[in-house]
């Protein structure tokens, strides 16, 4: 059982990292619009995050240094600061969107306007970060997040034409009536959502929080190889659900409620209850991850004591950053800025900043001063290098595509 619980860091990271509010919506939107023809973008992202999260986890385990510590040391104080500002901005915007996302999930369950839920959600997120032990936090939310597996049952219950779904996924083409730039804009959105930087900030800091040692390297692998593909599969399942239910009726998905509807149609009230619980757990996990990551990045850049493994009094500046970020996020969410749109843009912006995060990880994972004999194998270097090229291309293409397609309109 203990071994089983050991992989909850990966599950929590993956559930909260893949299926945050933006990704739930992006997957639902693209499924309805492009059926499965963008599944490759998710698969591409999953392989990338597996490679780099494994690396970041290994570096954190062997050298006890999380990602942003390395960023500062390797790219220097100035460029590191530019990176910090960009990463923090993206993390903060995501946090605001996730807080709104939790509120939206609560709205689905209560029919009480989500704006009224936002302050409570902000407080709960802070309370968990302030009071709950890291291990408890990840076990509870990682496991509740598994409620989302109900989507797979729902898909099976709907008796879809599997061969047609598979054909759409394996023979990607730009759906008729959609422009090629729009298609690639959504490809980047899915890819960016899968490789969101806060996942590695959180995962590598989590490895330090849990005091992983060299003999936990297997645990690192198990977490990465189980957690992230699971997140990817759930994303694809949601995409398939909306492809089966909405695409034939030409319904465009704009809201979280629509993302829950196919499961409700397939499995009734139980299914609906489970998927709302799943959405709640996923967005809440993402809020925890981004809230903590806001504190992690800034503290790790400046060398302040961070983490939940010490009493809050011992990590005062870290907790102050988390608290201030949460207050700011709640205020931003309360402006009634569309949380779905906010995350979509944030995900795409994050895609533009991806090389900044992943490049230092690749460099340090090759440095024997830190890694000893645990440096990258030639195989992982080969794949990681290919991804570095992809990341640079994506980051260069993002902003022009965003302008050209009016953000996927």
């Amino acid at each position, binding site marked *: 059982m203990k071994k089983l619980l050991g992989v909850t860091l990966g599950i929590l990271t993956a559930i909260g990292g893949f299926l945050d509010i933006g990704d739930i919506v992006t997957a639902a939107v693209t499924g309805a619009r492009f059926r499965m023809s963008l599944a490759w973008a998710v698969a591409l992202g999953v392989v990338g995050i597996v490679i780099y999260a494994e690396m970041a986890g290994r570096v954190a385990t062997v050298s006890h240094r999380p990602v942003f510590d390395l960023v500062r040391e390797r790219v220097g104080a100035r460029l590191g600061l530019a990176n910090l500002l960009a990463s923090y901005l993206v993390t903060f915007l995501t946090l605001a969107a996730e807080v709104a996302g939790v509120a939206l999930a609560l709205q689905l369950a209560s029919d009480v306007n989500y704006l009224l839920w936002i302050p409570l959600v902000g407080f709960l997120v802070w309370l968990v970060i302030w009071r709950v032990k890291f291990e408890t936090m990840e076990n509870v939310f990682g496991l509740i997040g598994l409620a989302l597996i109900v989507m797979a049952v729902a898909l099976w219950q709907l008796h879809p034409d599997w061969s047609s779904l598979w054909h759409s996924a394996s023979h990607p083409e730009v759906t008729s009536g959609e422009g090629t730039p729009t298609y690639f804009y959504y490809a980047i959105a899915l890819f960016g959502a899968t490789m969101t930087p806060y996942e590695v900030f959180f995962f590598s800091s989590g490895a330090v929080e849990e005091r992983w040692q060299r003999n936990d390297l297997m645990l690192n692998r198990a977490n990465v190889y189980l957690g992230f593909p699971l997140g990817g599969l759930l994303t694809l399942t949601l995409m398939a659900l909306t492809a089966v239910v909405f695409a034939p009726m030409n319904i465009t998905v704009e809201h979280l409620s629509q993302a829950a509807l196919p499961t409700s149609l397939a499995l009734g009230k139980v299914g609906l209850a489970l998927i709302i619980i799943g959405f709640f757990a996923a967005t809440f996990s993402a809020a925890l991850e981004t809230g903590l990551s806001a504190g992690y990045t800034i503290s790790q850049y400046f060398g302040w004591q961070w983490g939940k493994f010490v009493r809050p009094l011992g990590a005062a500046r870290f907790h102050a950053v988390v608290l201030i970020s949460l207050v700011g996020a709640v205020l931003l969410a309360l402006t009634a800025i569309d949380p779905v749109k906010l995350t979509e843009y944030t995900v795409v912006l994050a895609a533009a900043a991806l090389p900044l995060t992943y490049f230092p990880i690749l*460099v340090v994972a*090759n*440095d024997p*001063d830190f890694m000893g004999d645990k440096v990258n194998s030639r195989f992982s*270097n080969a794949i990681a290098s290919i991804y570095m*090229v992809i990341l640079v291309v994506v980051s260069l293409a993002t902003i022009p595509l965003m302008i050209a397609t009016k953000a996927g309109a």
Partner: protein
Amino acid sequence: MRLSELLDSDVTDRNGQRIGHVHDVQLVQDGPPLGTWGAAFRLEGLVVGPGSIGTRLGIARPEVKGPWILKLLFARRRSSRILIPWDRVRDIGDKHISADCVADECQGALERP
């Protein structure tokens, strides 16, 4: 004198020819004793060259084996780096250092870490 004042400084040789700028500073632990630490780090020389990000990132060191693409992009200029022994440094100004030697003789026979 602070490390940050040395780093990035332009370096010229005895004839006023520009050699490059300071990438790093080489230290050797053979100074007077300091507290419980032991022998202090003495400034042995300036690592000067036309510039390569590979040096700062640590990719250029031979013990770092990969990835191949980064070594190819950033590590090829390591050979052009010069180590100027501290006793050949004549003058330190604002982001400018002049050395009392020409490039070829500046290259001290100093050991590298």
